[in-house]
């Protein structure tokens, strides 16, 4: 039971909360927001591990930075898709997007 574990636990819980949002919410923008929570959770875990674990040489922190950048790109694209889709369908309800139904 060291400090790292507690930080990781927070990260895991935040990850689960985000996952729950992705899986359960119907508004597509909220899904995107929940995804951001999950990414934050991952970042948190990375930074925490980098802080406490020897021999990482700062890679964890660096990865967190990269992830933040990628997340920004992802949000830009994701929301652009959401807006484009909203224009076509006049809805942001995810479960109406079911063209793939078998």
């Amino acid at each position: 039971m060291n400090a790292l574990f507690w930080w990781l636990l927070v990260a895991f819980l935040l990850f689960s909360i985000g996952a729950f949002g992705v899986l359960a919410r119907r508004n597509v923008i909220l899904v995107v927001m929940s995804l951001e929570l999950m990414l934050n959770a991952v970042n948190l875990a990375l930074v925490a591990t980098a802080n406490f674990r020897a021999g990482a040489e700062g890679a964890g922190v660096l990865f967190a930075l990269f992830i933040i950048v990628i997340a920004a790109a992802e949000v830009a694209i994701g929301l652009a898709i959401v807006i484009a889709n909203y224009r076509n369908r006049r809805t942001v309800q995810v479960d109406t997007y079911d063209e793939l139904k078998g």
Partner: protein
Amino acid sequence: MEGTAYLQIAVALITLLPLLGFIVTLLFGKRMGRQAHIFPVAMVTVTAALSIYGFVWAFGHRDETFVWNAFDWITAGQFHVPWGYQVDTLTGIMLLVVGIIGCVVHYYSIGYMHGDEGYYRFFAYLNLFMFAMFVLILADSYLLLFLGWEGVGLCSYLLIAFWFRKKSASQAGKKAFIVNRIGDFGFTLAMFLIFVVTGTLEFTGVFAAAEKGDISAGITTWICLLLLTGALGKSAQFPLHVWLPDAMEGPTPVSALIHAATMVNAGVYMVARSYPLFVQSETAMTVVMAVGIFTAILASYIAITQNDIKKVIAYSTISSLGFMFVALGAGAWVAGIFYLFAHGFFKGLLFLCSGSVIHAMGGEQDMRKMGGLRTKIPVTFWTMLVGALSMVGMIPFAGFWAKDEIVGATFIAGEYVVWVVAMVTVLLTAIYMGRLIFMTFWGETRADAEVQAHIHESPPSMTVPLVILAVPAALLGLVVGLPPEGGWIHGFLEPVFYHPHHAEFRLLGEGGALMLASLLTVIVGLLIAWWLYVRQTEVPARIADRVPWAYRASLNKVYLDDIYAVVPVGATLGFAQWLWDVVDVKVIDGVVNGVAWLWGRIGDGLRPIQTGRVQSYALYMFGGMVVLVAVFAWVWGS
């Protein structure tokens, strides 16, 4: 071997020239049109000369066996068979028969097949046949013999079905080949067995092993019986004889060459060749004799009511071959080959004569529509009479001497039952051959007026071969078979059959008595035939009415064809149909398609899972990931 270089060349040419003739004629024959026969006939003429040379060599070196392994044929692992030729006195006799009759039949065919649209094809096939037949008799191993054996079968198939636009002809060709294949089944297994126990298929090696007693008695019997199965097919013995009468669908020269004089003798030749094996198995010899005598009487019985002139001769051939087997089975090896020798000439002659008759009648083969041809086609009549008398065994024609030795041998061997049956067969033979001659040449012509107008003697290309063949048919016995049991042929063949069957012939003793008995039987038979078919022509119908079952059984060939159509053929076809309809389509493919269907159903069942909503997929993914992490943690965790 010193001094055999010429023979080596001769043997090589004997097999190669007909093959060359076949290839050339097949490729260019069509362009040569009416001249298509020149090349193949030339090839066969040269080959006949060479085969006479081969005979002469054997004549001069009767104690030697010439063996020449041309090249390695098959070498695979422990299995080794060369492509080799062998010449000894037995081969010499066969060379003479095949060479001369083959050559004569080729010349005869020039006239007989004149105008046929498959003219070149016919000569090509005949050449191929000569090739295969020569390979058969020259082979020095069972396997090469088998090659010739199947080769003549192929030619037989091609030539029987020569007029393939007739259903009956194509049917008969197929039947001949398949029935022979059943015999070959036995032959193949016999070869396997021989190789397994002796490690070779070359005659010299196999027989040396047999002499030394390397082969156990039981195995010897098996080998002999399996070889015999092969011989039964090729030599048309019961129960595999059914193809030969049908084979008469082929052109008549084919019947003469293949189905009388040469190919059908191959079975007899093979059994005689395997003599060192057969002498060691009492059982096999008995079976050979039993099959032979049964076939002989059966065929005679059927022949008596047949109306097709060629069918009568075909059944007589089966009967004669039966006699040969009787001879082999009784241990009278030389007599068997002697009969084969003589039979080749007189039966070939009979067939060619019947061809000439048919030619004269404009294609008619039914004897009920003939009659009175004696004066209209005299050459054919006289030559056919010679052939028939030789066939029935009238003194002094060739058939008499040979057949008498066989019948006598059965008596001397103590097989009295066989002897009695053989005598009955001789009687029947005399009756049906007499019937044939009398119905065809005596009495009033029963043909249509139109046909009658066209009856003419055949051209010289056909009659000259008849005369040529009539000479040995008449005189051969006097030349080689006299005195009985001690003629030249005995001395000639003794080196091959080196356990000679020493029967002392005394004219004023057992031998003379037997000879007289068989001669009397023949004369009685001929008189009965004369009485029935010349004097009291209504009597045969009355007899048929009196014993209708016997008459009909004979007319319908003892119903064997009908039985075969049901038992082996029908059952096989039915079973095959069942395999196809039920096993293949329903069971095996049913399982295959059933599996496919099952997966389809499973897929249908799982379709609702595919909601198309991203979040449900995400849930599966996430859940799956959790499970995987848990499993990995559990498996690889501490």
